[in-house]
C-alpha cells in the first residue's frame, strides 16, 4: 500500500503502536473473531498521520458594543492532527483526531476537544462504530436543521458548522431498502459560547458553570437515535427519530449575580422527528429538511427548503456557477429576544458559488440572508484558494444588520468582520 506511510515510524514505535491499537480494540470489548483471530493482523497494520495547522486573523470593522469585549483584532492558532490505523484490509480501523485552538483575546475560545477517537469494524452488510465520532445528517446549505447528533462548537465560527465529538455506539445495517443506523449516545456535550472578551455574542455572557438539566441523570442521560436513509433513483431520502437531551439550551438571565448578569443554560429532554429529501434532477438539486420537536416546554415544526442550480462552464471558461435559494420557516413565528424561538422563522437566503476548476481549486461563495418579517439581513463572502501543494488561504467577510431590537442580529450589529486564515495541511 504505497499511500500508507509506515516508513514514518521506527520499528520500535511501530510495535508500541500495534500494542496500543490492540489495547484499544480489547478495551473496547471488541472480541469479534474475524477482527482479532489472525496473527497476520499485526503485520498488516497500516498507519497514516495527517492534519492541519491554521493561523486565523479576525478584524472587526467597528468598536465593541459591550464593555468587556475585545476591540478590533483577534488572532488565533488551531491544530488538528489525524492519526489513523487500519488492519484486516481496512475492515478494522482506529481514528484519533484531537483538536486545540489558542485565541489571543477570548479565553473561552482557547479550547480543545477530541473530535474523533473511534474504532470501526466493517462487515459486508453492517458496521459497528464505537467511540467519539462526528455524524452529519442533512442536505441544505444555509441551515442544518436535521443535523442533531453532535453538539455545536459555537466559539469556533459563526456558521455553526463546527461540532464537538460525541461519544457513541453506532450500529449501521445495509439493506436493499436502505441503511438503518442505531445510535446509543452516552454522555452529553454542552455547547461552547463566546466568553466575556469575545465578539459575536449578545449583551449577556452565557455562564458555562451554571447549567441545569431536565433529566435527573444530567449529562449522563443515555440518548437514542434511529435513522433510515436510502437512495431511490434521483431521490435521496432520510428519516429519523431522536430521543434525548436537546442540543439547544434554553437561555435565561441568572439571578446569581445582579451586578453582572449572565445567562444560565437549561437543557431539556426532547423527542424529534426529522426528514431530509434531495431530488437530483439534471442541473437542479431540490432540497428539503423538516423537523418536529417536542419538549416539556413546547412543540413546534420547522423546515428548510430550496434549490441549487448549476451552470457548467460559464463565460466560455471552465468556471461553474451555482445559484442557491433556501427558505427557513419555524411554527413558533417571530419571538422576542430572550424568548424561545428561532432566528430563522421566515427567512430567505440566496447565494452564488463560483468554482474556478483551476489547479489551485479557487472558489468564491457569496450569500445573502434576509428576514421577511422585519428588516434584518446578513451578508457573507467566502473565498479560498490553494497555494503550492499544502497551503489553503481563506478569506471571509460577514456583515450583519438589523433595525429590530428584538432580533439577535441587532445585538451583533457592531460585529461586522473580515477573517483571513492560512492553513497548512500535512
Amino acid at each position, binding site marked *: 500500500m504505497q499511500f500508507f506511510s509506515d516508513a514514518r515510524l521506527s520499528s520500535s514505535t511501530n510495535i508500541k503502536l500495534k500494542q496500543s491499537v490492540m489495547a484499544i480494540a480489547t478495551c473496547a470489548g471488541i472480541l469479534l473473531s474475524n477482527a482479532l483471530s489472525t496473527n497476520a493482523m499485526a503485520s498488516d497494520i497500516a498507519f497514516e498521520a*495527517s492534519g492541519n495547522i491554521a493561523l486565523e486573523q479576525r478584524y472587526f470593522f467597528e468598536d465593541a458594543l459591550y464593555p468587556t469585549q475585545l476591540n478590533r483584532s483577534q488572532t488565533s492558532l488551531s491544530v488538528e492532527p489525524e492519526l489513523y490505523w*487500519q488492519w484486516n484490509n481496512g475492515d478494522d480501523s482506529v481514528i484519533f483526531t484531537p483538536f486545540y485552538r489558542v485565541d489571543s483575546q477570548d479565553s473561552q475560545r482557547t479550547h480543545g476537544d477530541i473530535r474523533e477517537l473511534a474504532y470501526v469494524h466493517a462487515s459486508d452488510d453492517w458496521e459497528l462504530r464505537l467511540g467519539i465520532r462526528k455524524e452529519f445528517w442533512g442536505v441544505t446549505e444555509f441551515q442544518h436543521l436535521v443535523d442533531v447528533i453532535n453538539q455545536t462548537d459555537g466559539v469556533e465560527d459563526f456558521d455553526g458548522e463546527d461540532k464537538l465529538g460525541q461519544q457513541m455506539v453506532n450500529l449501521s445495517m445495509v439493506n436493499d431498502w436502505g441503511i438503518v443506523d442505531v445510535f446509543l449516545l452516552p454522555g452529553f456535550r454542552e455547547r461552547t459560547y463566546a466568553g466575556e472578551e469575545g465578539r459575536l455574542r449578545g449583551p449577556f455572557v452565557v455562564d458555562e458553570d451554571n447549567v441545569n438539566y431536565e433529566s435527573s441523570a444530567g449529562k449522563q442521560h443515555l440518548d437514542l437515535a434511529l435513522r433510515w436513509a436510502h437512495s431511490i433513483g434521483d431521490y435521496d431520502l432520510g428519516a429519523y427519530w431522536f430521543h434525548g437531551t436537546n442540543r439547544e439550551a434554553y437561555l435565561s438571565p441568572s439571578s446569581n449575580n445582579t451586578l453582572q448578569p449572565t445567562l444560565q443554560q437549561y437543557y431539556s429532554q426532547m423527542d424529534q422527528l426529522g426528514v431530509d429529501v434531495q431530488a437530483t434532477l439534471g442541473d437542479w438539486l431540490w432540497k428539503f429538511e423538516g423537523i418536529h420537536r417536542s419538549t416539556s416546554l413546547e412543540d413546534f415544526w420547522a423546515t428548510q427548503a430550496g434549490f441549487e442550480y448549476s451552470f*457548467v462552464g460559464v463565460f466560455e471558461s471552465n468556471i461553474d456557477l451555482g445559484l442557491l435559494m433556501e427558505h427557513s420557516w419555524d411554527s413558533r413565528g417571530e419571538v422576542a429576544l430572550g424568548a424561545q424561538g428561532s432566528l430563522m422563522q421566515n427567512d430567505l437566503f440566496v447565494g452564488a458559488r463560483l468554482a474556478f476548476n483551476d489547479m489551485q481549486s479557487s472558489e468564491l461563495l457569496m450569500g445573502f440572508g434576509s428576514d421577511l418579517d422585519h428588516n434584518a439581513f446578513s451578508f457573507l463572502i467566502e473565498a479560498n484558494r490553494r497555494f503550492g501543494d499544502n497551503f489553503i488561504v481563506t478569506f471571509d467577510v460577514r456583515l450583519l444588520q438589523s433595525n429590530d431590537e428584538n432580533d439577535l442580529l441587532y445585538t451583533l450589529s457592531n460585529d461586522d468582520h473580515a477573517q483571513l486564515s492560512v492553513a497548512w*495541511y500535512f
Partner: protein
Amino acid sequence: MLTKKILMSAVLALSSLSLLSVSHDSFALSAEEQKGLDISLEAKKRDLGWQDSTADMLMLLRNKQGQESIREIKMKSLEVLNDGDKSLTIFNKPRDVKGTAFLSFSHPVDADDQWLFLPALKRVKRISSRNKSGPFMGSEFAFEDLSSFEVEKYAYKYLGVDELNGVTNFKVEQYPVDENSGYTRRIVWIDTKEYLVHKIDFYDRKDSLLKTLTFTDYKQYLAKHWRADTQEMINHQNGKSTELKWANYHFKTGLSDSDFNRNSLKRAR
C-alpha cells in the same frame, strides 16, 4: 456533425419507444457506421469479465511554464453487467482534500448517480452528474474522459486504417450521444490485433482540435485484461498537459456491491 448527433439520439429514442410503424430499415447504419460500432463492440467484449479492480493513480498537472502539481488517487471499480460500472475514487493528495471520496454508479445512457464525501463535515452529498465536461481536479482530463467506456455512449463511423508507431490501427470517429458532452466528436486509434486504444483526438464544441490523449506502457493482467500504465493528455489550446501514471493494478480482488455504498464511501481510505 450536429445533425448526425440529433439523428442518432432520435434513432435511440424512437427505437426504444417502438411506437412507429416506420420500418427500422430507414434508419439502418451505413457500412462505415456499422464497422465503427463493431470495432467498439469487439474492444468492449475483449475486456469483459474483469469483475473488479483496484489501482493507484498519480496525476501530474503541468502548466505552460512547466510548473507541476500532483494528485494522488486510489480507484476501486466493480464491473456491472447490463449497466454501467460502479466506482469509488479516494483522494490522498493534495493534502487539503485527503479523505475526500467520490462514489459513482455509471449508466450507459441515463445520467450517472454520484455522491461525494466531504471529510471535514463528515457529509455525504449527492451531486449532479451533468457536469461531465468540466475539469477533473483542475487537470486537463474532463470527468467524462475518466468515466467507464460504454458502447451506448457514442455513435460511430469507421474512418480507415492508420499506422501509429509501427502498429496498424483502426481509426474510428465517435459522436457523443449525451448533449452535455464537451465534445462534438473524438477520433480514436484502436489497434487491429488486441483492440486497445492508443490515441484519442478530442474536438471541442466548435469542432476544433482541443486535446490529444495517448496511451503507453500497456500491461496485460490475468492473461486477458490490458491496461496502459501511462496516459498523457495534451491540451493544444492552452498548452497545459496532464500525465496519469497507474500502479498496483489488481483484478478480481473480491469487491462486491457492499463496497460501493454510502457506508463504504464514508470510511474509504
